[in-house]
């Protein structure tokens, strides 16, 4: 029995070692891409060290606008992570064979996105050295009252879930074994429900605050999901085309068009929910729509966000029209549409949701926000780190899925080295 466990562990170590090794090997385009990402990530790390030393005063935040681009990016990326798993639904529920392998690419994107989310939340903390206060049992996690405690649990759980599912499927493919149904199918279905939950919990972070009428609305939850399922699959459509061109991995256009279908329906729902929101706010009016006025029209002469939100709305509407028309079946137009979706929704969820919640303050004061250079560098650094992670994951996964990296072609030398 122990011999079997020893062999299994040794096999796993060989597998990990080869995966790690291959991450550092590639052609000049790979090195250039990873190099650029590393440089940006280092810039971000340096900026974060400056923030750790001097405090959050190096950002553009203040007591009036106490959450900024960090939480905005976090919110957007939780949506991406949730939506990456949406591809799972057609495969496992509707038995869509075309998307079967692509599910792993989606889940790897979810892992990278969650890593970015956790990074964004950590850099936003005033005392990250006290992170252990959040660990249930050791710290004092305020579960179930605090929605942030729910977020901590569901995000980490989702990370573990996806790492497990991808890891299991990949090692089975590496060892040319058929994955045992009970080891992954239940987890896949849990992941589908969990994906919805991570984004709903993140929405409830905002919805639960009675003192911020801009957020305290039931429509925020559905709006989050609709926009996530637009931007997430749009990102995956773009990512899959990159994978296809760089690795010659076989991805059919039909798979891309299935994803287009998801983006299409989600964008229509997103725009419909936007109209519902705008009507509810502006038809009756009242004092509590001050934040909406600030966002869409400007308030008392302050209008910094107005051009941003109208750009986002234009992008979203254009994208919706393009998605409905057959012209977006062509990849060129589809790619443009995806870029419009992603940008529009990023603006909407970031500047269009987080910042207006703070303007005006509950006491009626207007203080506008704009991220500082340091803050922007940290954000770029985390995005670069996330892309770095995703590229490494793909660099490991694609050869395994193509059969080029497998147990069968383990070199004798490597085996011998590890056996001694």
């Amino acid at each position, binding site marked *: 029995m122990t011999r079997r466990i020893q062999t299994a562990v040794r096999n796993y170590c060989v597998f990990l070692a080869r995966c790690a090794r291959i991450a550092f090997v590639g052609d000049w385009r790979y090195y250039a891409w990873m190099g650029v990402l590393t*440089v940006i990530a280092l810039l971000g790390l340096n900026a974060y060290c400056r923030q750790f030393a001097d405090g959050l005063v190096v950002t553009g935040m203040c007591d009036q606008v106490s959450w900024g681009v960090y939480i905005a990016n976090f919110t957007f990326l939780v949506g991406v992570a949730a939506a990456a798993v949406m591809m799972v639904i057609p495969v496992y529920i509707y038995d869509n064979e075309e998307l079967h392998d692509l599910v792993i690419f989606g889940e790897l994107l979810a892992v990278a996105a969650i890593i970015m989310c956790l990074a964004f939340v950590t850099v936003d903390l005033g005392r990250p050295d006290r992170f252990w206060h959040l660990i249930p049992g050791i710290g004092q996690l305020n579960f179930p009252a605090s929605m942030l405690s729910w977020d901590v649990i569901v995000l980490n759980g989702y990370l573990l879930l996806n790492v497990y599912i991808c890891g299991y499927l990949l090692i089975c493919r590496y060892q040319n074994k058929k994955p045992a149904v009970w080891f992954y199918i239940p987890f896949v279905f849990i992941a589908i429900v969990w994906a919805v939950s991570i984004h709903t919990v993140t929405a409830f972070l905002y919805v639960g605050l009675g003192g911020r009428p801009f957020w305290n609305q039931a429509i925020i939850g559905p709006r989050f999901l609709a926009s996530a399922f637009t931007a997430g699959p749009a990102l995956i459509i773009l990512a899959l085309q990159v994978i296809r061109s760089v690795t010659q991995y076989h991805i059919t256009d039909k798979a891309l068009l299935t994803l287009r279908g998801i983006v299409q329906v989600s964008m229509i729902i997103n725009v419909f929910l936007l109209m519902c929101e705008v009507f509810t706010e502006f038809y009756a009016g009242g004092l509590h729509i001050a934040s909406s006025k600030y966002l869409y029209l400007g308030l008392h002469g*302050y209008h910094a966000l107005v051009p941003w939100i109208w750009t986002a709305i234009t992008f979203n509407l254009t994208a919706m029209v393009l998605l409905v028309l057959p012209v977006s079946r062509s990849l060129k137009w589809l790619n443009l549409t995806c870029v419009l979706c992603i940008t529009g929704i990023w603006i909407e969820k970031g500047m269009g949701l987080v910042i207006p919640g703070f303007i005006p303050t509950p006491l009626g004061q207007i203080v506008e*926000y704009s991220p500082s250079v340091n803050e922007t560098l940290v954000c770029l650094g985390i995005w670069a780190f996330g892309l770095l992670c995703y590229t490494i994951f793909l660099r490991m996964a694609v050869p395994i899925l193509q059969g080029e990296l497998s147990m069968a072609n383990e070199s004798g030398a490597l085996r011998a080295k590890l056996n001694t």
Partner: protein
Amino acid sequence: MKGSTKTSLVIYGLMGVFLLLAAAFLMNLWGQTAERPQIPLVDPEFIKTATVRTSYAELVSAKADLSDFDCYGCHEKGKPPILRFDDKHNLLIPDEHKDIVMGHGRNNRNNLCTNCHDENNLELFQTRDGRELKFSESTELCGSCHGPTYRDWSAGAHGRTSGYWNREMGPISRKDCVSCHNPHSPKFPGRQPAPPPHTLRPPLTQPAHAAAEGEH
């Protein structure tokens, strides 16, 4: 260019960039926290808890100079002071008392010294119904007309309460009316406010019609 040459170029290029980056980080070329504008410390006058005036009782307990209250140092005993009025029946304050500005009550209803002071005994007050009160009982005098305020003051709801809210642990300190109000002109004069708050972030835009509105 061959693939391996391109790869070498990229790798050597990266090395160069990393070195440059390391140098830039160590030289601290960017990212220093900007100097925040100096915020002057508040004038300690704004933190002082002393009342603007001192009542007779407080002066007595502080053993201060009470010569201001020695009426018969100038006035003659038994001789009520003569009050002079102008043609509109406004009280004319004599030069010896020129520091007094009469402004007690609107519509000139209470600008008569003898409404409060006993003209036959200047060291006493008199109420409207003829009761006599000592200087140290000035609060009763005020209360004889200002009923609701006096009622609130007795319960601690009007005027400042300081000291101990928990009477078992220490005394509460109450002020007489005249510690805050000038009895001859009791309405509080305006005063300069302490400086407004300083926001951490400077404004991004100066709103166009802020100047016109004058505020915000």
